[in-house]
């Protein structure tokens, strides 16, 4: 009996650790292979011809048409800068600067990777179509309620994520020192 209980313990730990760790590592890359800065995370090796095993597994699991290394980099945030999950009932301000890139898009998405912006409006922000403050920094609002400056009206309920896609970027090329320049996501108020 004792032996059986021990065996059961061993197997449950093995299965829990084995599959749990795999899920955890490949969901957001919180363990290996991915870059993380504040709320943003991205797989820097996903666009290379011979990615590391974790990135390779992520690419297979993600099943996305990912960007090549020369094309750009995609960063995803599902939490605000304080670590709370993004909620459509709240107003968020994306504040700060973005890494050097030819252009970027910032799209609010649901779990199916669809834009949750108001259907008859733009799907999100595009770097060529935003107003900046005098020092070049950005204040971008995502909310259901009217917001000042740059505003994308979102629809629906529940959690969402933000996808920042930097096209033709020098980020992670090892050139320059802009590695830490990513905007913060600030929760302002909730209804």
């Amino acid at each position, binding site marked *: 009996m*004792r032996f059986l209980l*021990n*065996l059961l*313990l*061993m*197997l*449950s*730990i*093995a*299965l*829990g*650790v*084995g*599959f749990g*760790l*795999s899920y955890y*590592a*490949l969901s957001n890359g919180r363990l290996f292979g991915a870059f993380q800065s504040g709320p943003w995370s991205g797989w820097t090796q996903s*666009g*290379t*011809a*011979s*990615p590391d*095993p*974790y990135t*390779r*597994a992520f*690419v*297979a*699991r*993600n*099943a*996305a*048409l*990912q*960007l*090549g*290394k*020369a*094309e*750009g980099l995609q960063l995803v945030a599902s939490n605000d800068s304080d670590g709370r999950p993004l909620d459509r009932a709240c107003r968020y301000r994306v504040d700060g600067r973005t890494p050097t890139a*030819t*252009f970027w*898009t910032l*799209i609010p*998405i649901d779990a*199916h*990777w*669809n*834009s949750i912006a108001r*259907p008859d409006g*733009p*799907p*999100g922000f*595009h770097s*060529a179509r935003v107003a900046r403050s005098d020092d070049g920094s950005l204040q971008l609002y995502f909310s259901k309620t009217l917001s000042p400056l740059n505003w994308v009206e979102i629809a629906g309920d529940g959690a969402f994520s933000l*996808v920042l*896609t930097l*096209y*033709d970027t020098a980020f992670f090329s090892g050139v320059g020192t802009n590695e830490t320049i990513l905007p913060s996501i600030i929760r302002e108020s909730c209804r």
Partner: protein
Amino acid sequence: MIRTFLYAIAGLLLGLAIHLVVVLTLPMLADRTVFAEISALDAVNTTRLLSKPAPGAANTLKLDPDLSYAVCRLNLANGPGELSGTLPAAYWSVAVYDQTGAVLYSTTNRDGIGQTLDLGIFDPAQTRLLAEQKIDIASGLLIVEAHSDDVFVVVRLAPPHPSMRDRYEAQLQRLSCGNIQT
């Protein structure tokens, strides 16, 4: 007690082994892959536009709604692949993918290509023939070596404004894609 502890340690080690097996075999076991999605488009030797992600339907390829995408699948067993055409004077980029969805090669029009795309894709045997000058190609062809025969190419085009999207997509559709006759 010590025995239970040893069993727990053994479980942990076994768990790590399972984790490594999962990570290493996942690319082989995944069935809903990019390649399966692209194969369903029937884009062999033809340029097909990927439709803009519609509200409500799942955006399985995780496309950016601000960009236009064209895809073409090539089988290099029938000869080297070629994708050529003229694109609008906006940002565009091209990427060659293999069956696992890994990017073999990518570049953008900011790297001095200008508006003309002329990309040749060769498998290792064809690359050798190319080096021996046994395949005739036009000068100025951008040469990409692929390690497998079944590849697909994706061109991303960024219209500067949403109202230009239709016109830009029409030009994207005119890219010619096929095998070079040798």
